[in-house]
């Protein structure tokens, strides 16, 4: 079956989820994994879909036109075979908090250090908080550590960023208890 990724974003209001999912339901699309959230004043939806007959973008016709007309932006990606399968990422889960006075480069520098060391970021959120005079940037991310890597290794790599970016950084392992 062909799988698709659908991204929808627009000014937050009530009814977006029902408007979107009604269309998908009427088309006969299945929603697999999805994540939806408010970012700033926008509501953003990311969904992995499949449909028993649809093969490409044209299959959807103008089904999403009502969404566009109500001010939402819609982007559909046709997945390559296997693109819907979540890889098994084995390893310890590590949570990293980075926060401090807002300045350019916080996300980039942290992600760069992790990427250079083959750490897989699996979840990342940022939020600008604080006051207009004192904006504070908060970055929270979850990463899966490759085998033989520890929370101390991560801490060692990000340590120079504390001075460079003048931010606080804490690294801790998240233990998932399967009961």
């Amino acid at each position, binding site marked *: 079956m062909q799988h698709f990724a659908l991204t929808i974003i627009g000014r937050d209001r009530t009814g977006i989820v029902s408007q979107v999912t009604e269309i998908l339901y009427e088309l006969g699309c299945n929603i697999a994994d999805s994540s939806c959230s408010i970012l700033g004043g926008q509501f953003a939806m990311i969904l992995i879909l499949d449909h028993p007959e649809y093969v490409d973008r044209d299959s959807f016709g103008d089904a999403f036109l009502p969404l566009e007309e109500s001010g939402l932006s819609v982007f559909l990606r046709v997945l390559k075979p296997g693109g819907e399968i979540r890889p098994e990422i084995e390893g310890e*889960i590590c949570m990293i908090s980075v926060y401090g006075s807002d300045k350019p480069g916080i996300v980039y520098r942290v992600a760069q250090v992790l990427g250079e060391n083959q750490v897989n970021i699996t979840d990342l959120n940022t939020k600008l908080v604080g006051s207009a005079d004192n904006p504070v940037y908060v970055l929270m991310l979850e990463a899966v550590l490759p085998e033989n890597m520890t929370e101390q290794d991560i801490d060692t790599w990000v340590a120079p960023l504390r001075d460079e970016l003048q931010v606080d950084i804490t690294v801790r392992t998240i*233990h998932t*208890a*399967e009961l």
Partner: protein
Amino acid sequence: MPVCPIILYPDPVLKQATEPIGALDSEVDALIQDLVDTMYDAGHSVGVAAPQIGVSRRAVVVDVSHSKLGKDNNHGLLTMINPRVIEKSGSKTMREGCMSVPDYTGNVTRAETIVVEFTDRAGRSRVIECSGFEAVAIQHEIDHLDGMLFLDRVSSLKTDLFRRKNS
């Protein structure tokens, strides 16, 4: 004694309240042995409740002594018949998963310290205080006896920490 296959959701037995156990007969003893064998066979498991092997009766086994999180604070192997939490205090959030609900984990907030009464395998009435990971494991297993899954108790989405201000 057999290692039993773990029953997976949506098997209805996982959402049923279980029957209290009366006399501790050989059937109950065999059930306890099956739970223990199944728990240890799973390797990483620290607890199994009777409904997870398809038996709708009030029995669980817990042993966190071999786990990283529980090795310094535990009562060893606990075989608990008709367990009941009689006191709760504090709160502790952990990311939980469940052998009966594979591939999903969620943050669950439970009591940090509990006092639990139960009958053990030898028929003795016991009241013990547990804390930390052992307390979490016992509460998770007792939930199974009431037809509750951790999915019923997920306390936050991962991004929830950004939303508390206005809630």
